[in-house]
């Protein structure tokens, strides 16, 4: 037994971190997030060049054929540097394709792996509805009808994979960019690094990707783990920034990190955060290897890590004082990502209720 990262995984982490520290510093993050789409094709190609977009794509389709843990380690790094762009929706769509129809897989995955194609995934409906059985978007006679209020990066996606109800139950269908009957409205979100659009389908032609509720649930579970990993990376970054600040900012004739009040707040954060890393590692590992535990762990990890993210960034801002409240200072980038991570795919209490149901309590 081994509960740790492999050498390859550690290498992936350090390579990505080095790349992002050079190419995705906060100044760059700001430029991209203030652009029209918050998607920078240069950055995306760079990430694809390091293998990020193809981590889970099978080797015969041009990817690395790895597992969710590897992808989550990438999400961790992207969260740490608050990387703008369509990683999450693209990753969820990739996973939908993995277990789907061969034709769809072969059509999209090679281009996803190279970064030439960007995909998105549309699941949630109404307010807070992420349950595959309760979707109201319909697929009938080759066409989709319905509304998806929070579709990530719909404006840049080459195709949107849509979870809907067909004649034989829930399934996933692909809508190509520019397909007729699509009305996409970009929304203003809190997180400027991850955009969402309100998308309406009216008699939109769509092709089959996967069928059955299980396929949708798997995509959702992977998304939950990726959000937990993003939250973990972001929270760690906030903690480190605050430690650095506490080592340099002086008041009352000493650095503020020498005050126990400050030190103990930071110690409390580390105490909550560090063991939680193992929780999302486990959830990611379970997704591929311990199926019977995967759904519950994904729910618990998302709820727990995104709560911790919020707490961490809250203390981080407070401990910075006035500068922490400014637009110029970078902490709000992570604060905004924490808001996204908590809300997207459903709030913490929803997933805790689900975890309780799944436990058979």
């Amino acid at each position, binding site marked *: 037994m081994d509960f740790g990262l492999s050498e390859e995984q550690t290498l992936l982490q350090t390579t990505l971190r080095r790349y992002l520290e050079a190419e995705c510093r906060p100044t760059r993050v700001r430029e991209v997030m203030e652009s029209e789409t918050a998607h920078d094709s240069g950055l995306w190609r760079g990430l694809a060049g390091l293998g990020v977009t193809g981590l889970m794509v099978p080797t015969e389709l041009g990817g690395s054929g790895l597992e969710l843990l590897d992808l989550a380690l990438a999400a961790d790094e992207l969260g740490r540097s608050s990387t703008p762009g369509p990683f999450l929706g693209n990753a969820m769509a990739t996973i939908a394709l993995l277990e789907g129809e061969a034709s769809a897989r072969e059509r999209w995955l090679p281009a996803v792996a190279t970064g030439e194609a960007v995909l998105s995934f549309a699941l949630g409906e109404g307010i807070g509805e992420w349950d595959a059985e309760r979707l109201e978007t319909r697929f009938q006679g080759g066409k989709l009808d319905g509304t998806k209020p929070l579709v990530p990066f719909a404006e840049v996606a080459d195709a949107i994979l849509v979870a809907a109800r067909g004649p034989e139950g829930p399934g996933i269908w692909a809508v190509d960019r520019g397909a007729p009957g699509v009305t996409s409205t970009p929304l203003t979100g809190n997180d400027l690094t991850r955009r969402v659009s309100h998308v309406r389908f009216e008699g939109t032609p769509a092709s089959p990707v996967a069928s059955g509720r299980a396929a949708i649930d798997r995509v959702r579970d992977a998304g939950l783990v990726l959000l937990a990993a993003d939250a973990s990376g972001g929270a760690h970054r906030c903690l480190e920034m605050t430690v650095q600040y506490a080592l340099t900012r002086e008041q009352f004739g000493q650095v503020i990190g020498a005050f126990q009040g400050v030190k103990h707040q930071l110690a409390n954060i580390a105490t909550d955060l560090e063991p939680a890393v193992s929780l999302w590692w486990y959830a990611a590992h379970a997704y591929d290897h311990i199926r019977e535990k995967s759904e519950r762990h994904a729910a618990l990890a998302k709820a*727990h890590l995104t709560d911790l993210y919020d707490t961490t960034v809250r203390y981080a801002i407070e401990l910075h004082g006035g500068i922490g409240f400014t637009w110029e200072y970078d902490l709000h980038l992570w604060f905004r990502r924490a808001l996204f991570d908590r809300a997207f795919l459903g709030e913490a209490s929803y997933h805790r209720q689900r975890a309780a149901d799944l436990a058979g309590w």
Partner: protein
Amino acid sequence: MNLKYSEEYQHFRDEVRAFLQENWTAADAASNPVASEMAQSLGSIARTDERATEFRKKAAARGYMYRHVPRRYGGGEQPPDPLKATILQEEFRRVKAPPELASQGPSMLVPTLLAHGTDEQKKQFVEPTLLGHIRWCQGYSEPGAGSDLASLRTSAVLEGDEWVVNGQKIWTSNAREADWMFALVRTEPEAPKHEGISYLLIDMKTPGIDVRPLRQMDGDAHFNEVFLDNVRVPRGQMVGPRGEGWRVSRSTLKAERALIGNASMARRAFDGTVLLAQQTKVRGKRAIEDSKTREQLAELEARVLAAEYNGFRLLTASARGEDPGLAGLVTKLHTSTLAYDVSRLAMDISSDHALLAPGEKHAPFSGFLVQSYMMYFALAIGGGAPNIQRNVIGERGLGLPRDTRR
């Protein structure tokens, strides 16, 4: 990451089962003078009768117990292996076989002796301690020296071949039952405070020792005051060099079980609380059906799982020879805080009946969960109070400046 039981481990589990079947029968288990698990985890009670001793000897000889201790001193002498340690714990628990003793002798004195003791000291003390034949108490804290332990004042003065010890220890757990005490005493009154301390082994039957029980908040009296009045200790009973006691006492326990221990306590408390919620009806409804309770349970379970998997992570780091850093420093504060929170939910589930005392049959689960709430204070304070943990995490883990401390 690989959590599968490979064939090698399946085989190991089969071996352990076969061993247990042969050496620990259901009748043996039934004859156990039942000690509560909570008391066991604090090291105050554990089975050490002849049958248990015979079993422990066999288990150690097979490499199933005290795996970090060399064979010549009665240990199992095995390389650290987190999965084997987990399998052993699971299988031993399943048939209620006597576990390794976790009291202060085996867990604190033995590693210290192994690192700093003379061969003679190891031969005299290690095996009998592992079998529970010599019981120890830890004489560190004093009325004026708790968190600031190095300010301790109990003195030892060399007279001929004997150290003459005078002073007072306090909060000394199990001092009344103990055969021996390992103690920190001041031997160099002129030296800076950390450099004037020595580590002594004191026979509790020596004249001049007076032990007085202290009643605890939970009504029990496991801890004591120990007065030492001209207690004469042979020179050969010092561990490590004179004046080096501080360093000697810092030898940390790298044994496998120390790392798994804490999380399993939180897990037991949590599982107990789920059961309580399933069996307790409040205002006509089972507590488990209340949506807020379900949510709180799920929140706590995430933290319990984090503690458990963090334990796996530490074991893996130790097997790989890596320094786990923060992941290791935070465990005590993480699990003791978690344990409080689990207890508080258990009390809320018991509703107004949480006011009933432990042992009261009208209380849900006989008030057991309230009693464990009190026990968690002992775990949180003993061996370094929470703020001291926070200092260590902040300073050693995060690199923040040291407090000004004299």
